């Protein structure tokens, strides 16, 4: 028996940050709407293609950013909006179709049942050897224990949403280590949920697309993870 019907009353929202995702955005939004019936909020990070129009057509509510804020800046806008609007749970996912809506139910489970504040859809099988090495380094620097720290397929409860809406989270550039460390240091309970992910069909990872960016990302995240390591609030 599907729990979706009971969950309709729980004020959940699905937040999808998008930057030039006209190829997949409509199908992702439609699929999420079809599977869950939850409202979908697409945060458009200054796309130059038809992302906004297609997302609206597919039934999403669109937040258009006037300046490009990057992946986390866009996502935070969505979480902030959801928090202000009174939603109690927010699921975040990528716009490129690599996160499958069929796993939403499983991901929502621990948070809706109150067993965790945040659940992270993890797919450890994905990624090259280099990416795995990066994960090991990042986990060692930050002290995080999650399996898949870079996954953007997550569910946050209201407490997590409030925390992530704040100023403290605004200067982050990526949603992985910085966000997770912030949540962990605030004493929130994070759980891993095993899911599968599809390979990207269009575009490339916003993080791993050139060597220079990878070096910047690693240096940024290592420094961030390390400097926030022992902060307790």
């Amino acid at each position: 028996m599907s729990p979706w019907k009971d969950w309709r009353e729980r004020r959940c929202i699905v937040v999808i940050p998008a930057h030039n995702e006209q190829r997949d955005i409509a199908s992702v939004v439609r699929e999420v709407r079809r599977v869950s019936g939850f409202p979908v909020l697409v945060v458009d990070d200054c796309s130059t293609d038809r992302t906004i129009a297609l997302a609206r057509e597919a039934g999403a509510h669109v937040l258009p950013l006037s300046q490009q804020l990057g992946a986390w800046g866009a996502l935070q806008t969505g979480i902030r909006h959801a928090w202000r609007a009174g939603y109690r749970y927010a699921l975040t996912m990528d716009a490129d179709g690599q996160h499958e809506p069929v796993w939403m139910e499983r991901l929502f489970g621990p948070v809706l049942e109150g067993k965790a504040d945040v659940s992270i859809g993890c797919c450890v099988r994905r990624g090259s050897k280099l990416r795995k090495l990066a994960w090991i380094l990042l986990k060692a620097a930050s002290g995080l224990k999650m399996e898949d720290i870079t996954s953007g397929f997550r569910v946050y409860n209201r407490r997590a949403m409030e925390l992530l809406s704040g100023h403290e989270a605004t200067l982050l550039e990526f949603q992985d280590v910085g966000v997770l460390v912030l949540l962990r240091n605030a004493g929130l309970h994070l759980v891993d949920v095993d899911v599968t992910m599809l390979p990207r069909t269009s575009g490339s990872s916003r993080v791993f697309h050139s060597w220079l960016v990878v070096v910047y990302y690693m240096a940024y995240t290592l420094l961030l993870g390390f400097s926030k390591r022992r902060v307790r609030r």
Partner: protein
Amino acid sequence: MFSLVSGVIGIIAALTIIFLIRRDHLHVRYGLWWIGVAIAFVILGFFPQIIDRLAASLGVAYGPVLALTLGLTVFVIKVLTLDIARSRNETRIIRLVQRIAMLEAEMQRLAASIEPPPAEEAGAKEPAPREAGED
């Protein structure tokens, strides 16, 4: 001769700053700092014995080294505070951009009334905590 050069540099710097403030290229608030720097240049340029005396009392054998070290330290602190201010500004801009997006979406929702807010749907079990603690 060297002292004359740094004194002249100080005077040129001061004039440049006044010109920049006149043309609105520099906020008066920051102009104050730079005028201070220029004055220090002029004073130390024309009266280098100040540095020599200070160096002697601190036990630094060669006066100019003390001047350079102090100058470099002040410079590094200034650049660091600049980056701190920049980070703060960046936070402000990001939050402004986010707020504009939220307001834009809200306006559109009101205009079209696409989807009612969840508070109405669920019979408002708890008040929507708008604005609480947010800028």
